[in-house]
């Protein structure tokens, strides 16, 4: 535990949160007021009185983001379904593969998608709208989608033909906050007036001011947007805008707005309620409820670009296919490129 605390301190320092010091005094005053009202709450508190959300949080789950259409508006699995699905997920984690099949893109032994249905036996992480699915695209969203380049036809002339995730630029938001095959962890570090949310997937750190300072000018755009936060009771609310639109999530644009609400329900559970909106893309906003559990150990650096041999290999495969085509040995296109990054 001691080493973990030291680790958090070290991370806070290395993240260079020098701006915090200047605001600490004001924060302490407001914290004093807050701590009196919060005294009855069971939520752990920081020394300066904020709810303590710090730690490394694991959000693995086999509950899909979107509900299977077969289930309609049914929010919860039956016990039998839970048993079967979790049993299968457990066997997949612990036992030999039940099948070796195309599309299992990473070594089974090396993936870490979890084995449990989200708390309460939820059939989807999306809790709103009631069908548990991302709302329909607007007419503009559909038109935009139909104009988008189809990466299935990419000739992979260069790395620019590949997506931001493969290029290790960013996993982006909200992707980095949603469960995937591995790296399903975030770390939260707090200081008076600031919270830092570190995403394991491509190790992004968002330094979120909580001191009421104004947003960045709307002309200042960023890959993971500009996050501003505040407390509503014991809930940390983080609103993120100013996306640069270069990392579209299912067609989203620069109009993407994320509202995260982190609530520490008790010692062993953090709940993230994430609302995603982009009025030109989806007909209405949608909300995800993602439970998280504390996990031991440090959040290790995922230095994605360190040895991104996959990119080299993808381009090599494409060049070899072209060479073979020139020699009349094979079709020019290297074959169906099953690119499913943007999820």
């Amino acid at each position, binding site marked *: 535990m001691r080493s973990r605390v030291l680790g958090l301190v070290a991370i806070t320092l290395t993240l260079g949160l020098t701006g915090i010091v200047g605001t600490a005094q004001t924060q302490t005053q407001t914290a004093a007021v807050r701590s009196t009202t919060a005294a009855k709450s069971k939520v752990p508190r920081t020394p300066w009185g904020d709810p303590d959300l710090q730690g490394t949080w*694991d959000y693995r789950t*086999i509950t*899909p983001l979107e509900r299977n259409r*077969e*289930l309609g508006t049914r929010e919860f*699995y039956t016990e*039998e*379904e839970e048993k079967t*699905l*979790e049993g*299968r*997920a457990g066997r997949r*984690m*612990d036992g030999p*593969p039940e099948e*070796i099949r*195309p*599309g*299992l*893109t*990473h*070594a089974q*032994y*090396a993936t*870490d*998608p*979890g*084995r*449990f249905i989200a*708390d309460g036996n939820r059939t989807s992480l999306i809790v709103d709208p009631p069908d548990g699915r991302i709302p329909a695209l607007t007419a503009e969203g559909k038109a935009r989608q139909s104009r988008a380049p189809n990466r299935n036809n990419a000739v992979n002339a260069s790395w620019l033909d*590949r997506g931001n*995730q*493969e290029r*290790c630029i960013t996993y982006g938001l909200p992707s980095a906050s949603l469960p995937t095959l*591995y*790296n399903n962890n975030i770390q939260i570090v707090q200081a008076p007036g600031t919270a830092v949310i570190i995403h*394991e997937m491509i190790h992004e750190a968002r330094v979120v001011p909580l001191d009421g300072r104004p947003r960045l000018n709307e002309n200042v755009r960023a890959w993971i947007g500009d996050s501003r936060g505040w407390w509503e009771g014991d809930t940390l609310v983080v609103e993120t805008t100013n996306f640069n639109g270069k990392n579209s999530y299912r067609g989203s644009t620069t109009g993407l707005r994320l509202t995260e609400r982190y609530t520490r329900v008790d010692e062993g559970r953090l709940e993230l309620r994430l609302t995603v909106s982009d009025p030109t893309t989806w007909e209405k906003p949608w909300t995800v409820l993602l*439970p998280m559990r504390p*996990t031991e150990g440090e959040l*290790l*650096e*995922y230095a*994605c*670009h*360190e*040895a*991104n*041999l*996959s990119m080299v*290999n993808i381009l*090599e495969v*494409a060049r070899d*296919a072209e060479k073979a085509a020139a020699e009349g040995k094979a079709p020019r296109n*290297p*074959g169906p*490129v099953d*690119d*499913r*990054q943007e*999820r």
Partner: protein
Amino acid sequence: MDRARVVLITLIVALSVSSSLRAHHSFAAEFDANQPVTLKGTVVKMDWVNPHTWIHLDVKNPDGTVTRWMIEGGTPNTLVRRGFNKRSLEAGTEVTIEGYRAKNGANRANGADMILPGGKRLFMGSSGTGAPKEGPEK
């Protein structure tokens, strides 16, 4: 077959697919699902690098020659979390790896399963690996 069972099977398939969809790198741009390979060989070294580890494997061919293969594995932090570290797969270890070969026929593969000497499958069974307890208590 009753409707409940049909729904359940649909869910199983849907969950299988959804988990396979969430990969960091495209499988199909790099590897060939129609070229499954089973490689039995000796570990030369393992590169503990991001975003994916690579195992270098010397595979003896039927004619006695040796071919060095590179097998793509998981990300280091995931491996560590699952109880696998630099000592887990030392040089000289005989392993069998099942996976898919690179699309251009290079001696590279995406590893799907690994079998250690004595038939033990790597990571198979989280007890005894030293891995931290996974997931929430049910």
